């Protein structure tokens, strides 16, 4: 976690259970709480993973869904998983944010893409752990930057 992590975690949080910030009062479905440990990548080193999938375009509207990662910041830090990772245990067939957290609390979640120049493009599109205030969104960007990443906020409007 970044230096002065307590302060930034406070701005990110509080940590919430899946869907706690949304108006949906529901449980995660079978298979969505299984931790896909073999597929989860920690970004706490501040380094873009060498073998990550990267986008050619820097146009946010052209970021392809098959190169998309899901990100979560929880007590274990910033971690990602490729969204197209198959999850045969869940009806939706692919992983979701709780396959990183194991249905436990998290501060924030969203989607991200890696650019060719190591720039990271992020949004807050997670129904389970989304930001609901501008301050939380800003804190997410600060978290990425304090780890050393060059990060660009994407609009939360699906293309």
């Amino acid at each position, binding site marked *: 976690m970044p230096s002065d992590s307590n302060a930034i975690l406070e701005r990110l949080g509080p940590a919430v259970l899946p869907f706690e910030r949304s108006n949906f009062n529901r449980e995660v479905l079978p298979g969505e709480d299984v931790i896909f440990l073999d597929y989860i990548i920690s970004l706490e080193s501040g380094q873009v993973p060498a073998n990550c999938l990267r986008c050619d375009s820097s146009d946010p509207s052209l970021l392809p869904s098959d190169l998309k990662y899901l990100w979560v910041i929880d007590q274990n830090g910033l971690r990602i998983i490729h969204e197209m990772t198959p999850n045969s245990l869940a009806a939706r067939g692919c992983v979701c944010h709780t396959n990183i957290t194991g249905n436990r609390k998290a501060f924030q979640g969203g989607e991200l893409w890696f650019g060719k120049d190591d720039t990271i493009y992020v949004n807050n599109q997670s129904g389970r752990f989304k930001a609901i*205030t501008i301050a*939380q969104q800003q804190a997410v960007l600060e978290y990425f930057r304090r780890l050393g990443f060059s990060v660009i906020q994407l609009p939360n409007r699906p293309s």
Partner: protein
Amino acid sequence: MRSSYSRKSVVSRQAFKLATQRSPRFSSAVESGQSRTLLVDTEVSRFNQGRLRSSLKNRSQLLPVLYHNQLVRFNPDNKYLTGPEQLWLIESVIGTQTLAKALSIGKPIDNRLIENLFKKAPFAFYLSADKAYLVSSDDELTQLDFGPLTEISALTALQQFGVTALERVKEKTAVRL
């Protein structure tokens, strides 16, 4: 009393095909070459009025489905789900406990049951200011991204956009309409 009417003389080809597909009695008769003498006069009359075809349909249309170790009946004549394999979409939006409670009563999963679930849903959806997006919540950040939001009920959202879109909204916070 059996009739000697040929199938052409009593029912349309389509109706006969439908009957042989849906009725074991008709199917076995066709296989044994007895189809020409299968329909009795009263049945011919009812068939021509559409009643028999209707009753055959009603008898066979509910699919028994094992869902979370519970035997439920699914009506394939369903405008919200293409098949029982999409039941998880309802569960994902409505919630496991709510769906389980509804199914435990024993009612078939049909349009009415699904609409009732969404009618009672304790949440709403929201349309963006330009009506181009459906979003899951009304908060500071969502208003920054989408402008002033218009609330619509869960039932209205279901009827207008379908359950697949609502599940997507729930999972990703927004969908483009």
